[in-house]
C-alpha cells in the first residue's frame, strides 16, 4: 500500500522546468555562499575592507547573502508562475521547453 499525498493535486506540466531552474539557482547561490566561506578562510582580514557607505565587506557580503536569497526566491516564483500560466493556457504543449 503506497501512501497518498494529504490533498490531491493534478499533474504539473511545469515541474521539469521548475526543477531545472531550481537546481541552477541553487548552484548559483551555493557559489556565492561558498565565496563568503572561502574569503573568510583564505583572507579573513579582507572582510575588514570598507566597501559601501562605511560598512565593511563582512557586513555587506553577509547582508547581501540574505538579500540575494530573497531576490532569487522572488525571481524563481515569478518564473514559475509565468511558466505555469503559459502551460495552463496551452496544455497540449506539456512541460517541455
Amino acid at each position, binding site marked *: 500500500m503506497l501512501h497518498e499525498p494529504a490533498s490531491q493535486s493534478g499533474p504539473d506540466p511545469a515541474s521539469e522546468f521548475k526543477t531545472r531552474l531550481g537546481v541552477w539557482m541553487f548552484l548559483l547561490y551555493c557559489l556565492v555562499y561558498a565565496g563568503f566561506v572561502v574569503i573568510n578562510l583564505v583572507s579573513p582580514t579582507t*572582510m575588514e575592507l570598507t566597501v559601501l557607505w562605511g560598512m565593511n565587506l*563582512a557586513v555587506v557580503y553577509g547582508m547581501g*547573502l*540574505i538579500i540575494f536569497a530573497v531576490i532569487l526566491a522572488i525571481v524563481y516564483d515569478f518564473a514559475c508562475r509565468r511558466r505555469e500560466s503559459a502551460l495552463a493556457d496551452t496544455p497540449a504543449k506539456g512541460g517541455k521547453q
Partner: protein
Amino acid sequence: MAITAFLIFVAFVLGLSFYLGQRTRTSSGYYAAGGQIHWVVNGVAFAGDYLSAASFLGICGMIAVAGYDGFLYSIGFLAGWIVALFVVAEPMRRLGKYTFTDAVDAKFDSRGIKLAAAISTLIVSIFYLIPQMVGAGVLVEPLLGIPHHWGVIMVGAIVITIVATAGMTSTTWVQFIKGSMLIVFSSILVAAICYRGFTTEPDQGGRVPVHEYATLAATEADSRLTVAEPGWEVVETHEDAAAKAAFAKLARDGRQTWWLISRTDDGVALKETEAVVVAANGTTLINGAPPSAENALRQVGNIEQLRGETDVKSGSISPIELLAGLSDKDTVVKRWKKASFTDADGGKATVYYPTLTRGNVLMRPGLKFKVQGTVLERLDFVSLMLALFLGTAALPHILIRYYTVPSPAAARKSTIVAIIAIGFFYVLTLFMGLGAMINAVINPADSNMAAPLLARSFNSLLFAIISAIAFSTVLGTVAGLIVAASGAVAHDFCDRYLRIPMDDRQKIRAGKLAAFSVGTLAIILGIAFKGMNVSFLVGLAFAVAASANLPAMMMLLFWKRTTAKGIAASIITGVVLSVGLICFSPMMYGQFGLDPTTAPIPFNNPGIVSIPLSFIVLVLVSLSTKNRNSGVAQPA
C-alpha cells in the same frame, strides 16, 4: 506588566486551541491541518516555526558577546531556506502525506525506511526540543519569579494542551501570531536602538547610573604582586590557562573581590571585574558580598571610543551609520569574557572580566570561530556553515508544514513568504545584538536575555511585549516539534511500520497520546539539561538533520538508482555518525566536565564528515542492492 502581557498571551492561545480543537475531526486535520492553510498564513507560520529561541534569544545574545560571529548563524540559517525552496519544497509536497517519512518512503513502501526515518525524526526533534525547553525555563524564571523546573513544566503543559487539542491547526495559528508579532516588535526595537544612537555613557535613558569600573596601579617583583594604592591587600593570584588571563583576589574593608591582572609595556594594572564565588560551604558571594536586590551582577557592554572619540552622545542615527560606526578601526568596544576556576579556599569562582575590541575585528568573523586558527579550527568553521546551509531543509518540523497547504505551488509560495519574513528578521538580529552590545544590557552570566533586557532599557511596556513574544517563540517552535515527533511515533511507527489497525478517530487519539508522551519527555530533558548551551544543542539538531535526512531526500529526487535499502542505510549512517562525532567532540567533553583536549574527535561540528559519508553510503548500498530491490525510485 510583563506578567500581565504573558498571561493574556497564554489565555489567548489556549482559547484559540480549544476553539480550533472542536473542528478537528480527521487525522488529516490533526497532522496536516487538512491541507487547507492559505499560503500566506503558512509562510508566516513557517517563520514562527523556524525562528526559535535559538534565533531570537541565542543569536542576539551571541552577537552581543561575540560580534559578527553570531551573525554567521543568521546567514547560515537563512541560506538553508534556499535549499528548501529550490530543491525540496514542491517535490516533497507532491510525495508526502503527513510526515518526512511519508515523503522518502512514497515510492518504496519499505519498512526499513519507515523505521529509520521515524527514528531520525524523533532524534532530531528531541535534540531540538531540549534547548527550547531549557530556554523556556531561562525565560520564565526571571519573568514570573518561579524556579527553572516549574517554568519548564508550565511551558510543557501549555504546549501539550495546544497540540493535543487541535494538532497542526492550532499549532499553525500560534506560529502565525508569534511570527507576525516577532517581526513587528523586533522592527520597533531596532528603530528604538537607532533613535537612541551611540553613547559612551549608556545609562538606559537615565534609569541606570553608569558604573565606572576602577583600575588600580600595581607592581610585580619576584612573582609578588603589590597594589600601589594603600588599603588594598593581595590575597591570592590565579593564572588561568584556559582563559589565557591572570586574576588577583584583593581584600579591602573586609570585602574580597577579583581583579584582572593586565600586564603591558607600561607596567601592571588591575582592572575591576565582576565575580560570583560559591564557597566550599555552599554560600554564594557576588563581588564579595551576599546577593541581594542591590548586589547583583551589573549589566555590561559599552562603547569606549567611537571613531577615536571618547565622549560621545550622537543622538539618532540611521541603521547604516550604526553598522559603519561600529566597523571603524578606531572604534573600541568593551566586551566581557568569562573564566571559571577553583580559588585557594576551594570556592568555585566565576570571573567576568573586560576586554577591549576594535571595530574592524568585532565586525568580521574570528572572535568565536577561529578563521585564522589551525587547520582543524578552520575546518570546524566550514563544517558549521555546511550544516547550517543543509540542515534547514531537512528539519522534520519544517518539512511537515509543506503538507498543510493545498498544492505544491502553494508550498513554493509559502516558502517564499517564509524567506522574506525570516530574511528580514535575521537582518534585524544584527542590529538587536549590536544594540545590546553597546547599551550595557548584557547579563554577563546569561547572554540569552540580551534582547529582552535591551527592550527593558527603553521602557517596561516594550519589555513586557518582547518577553511575551520570546515566550511565544518557545511555544510556537515546541508545538511544531511535538507535532513532528508525535507524527513519527503515532503515524510513522505505530500506523505504518507496525501496521496497527486504526480508524481515523483512533489515529487522532494515538497522535494526542504520542504528543503527551513526547511533551512529557521534553519536560524531563528540559529540566535535566538546565544550564546547557542552547545554541550548541540547536547546532547538533541541524547537523543530525543535514546528515541523516538531506542525503536521502536529495538522492531520492535526483538519482534514479536510489534504492530503499540505500535510503535506510544513509539515514542510519547520518544519525549514528553525527551524534557519535558530537558525543566525542571537545565541546561535549567540556560540557561534562572532562578535559576538552583529550576528546578523541578534534572538532565540534560533525557535518563536514557525516554529510558526505551519508551520501557515499547511500550510493554504495543503492548500487549493491539495485537488482534485488523492486522499488527503485522514479524521477520526481
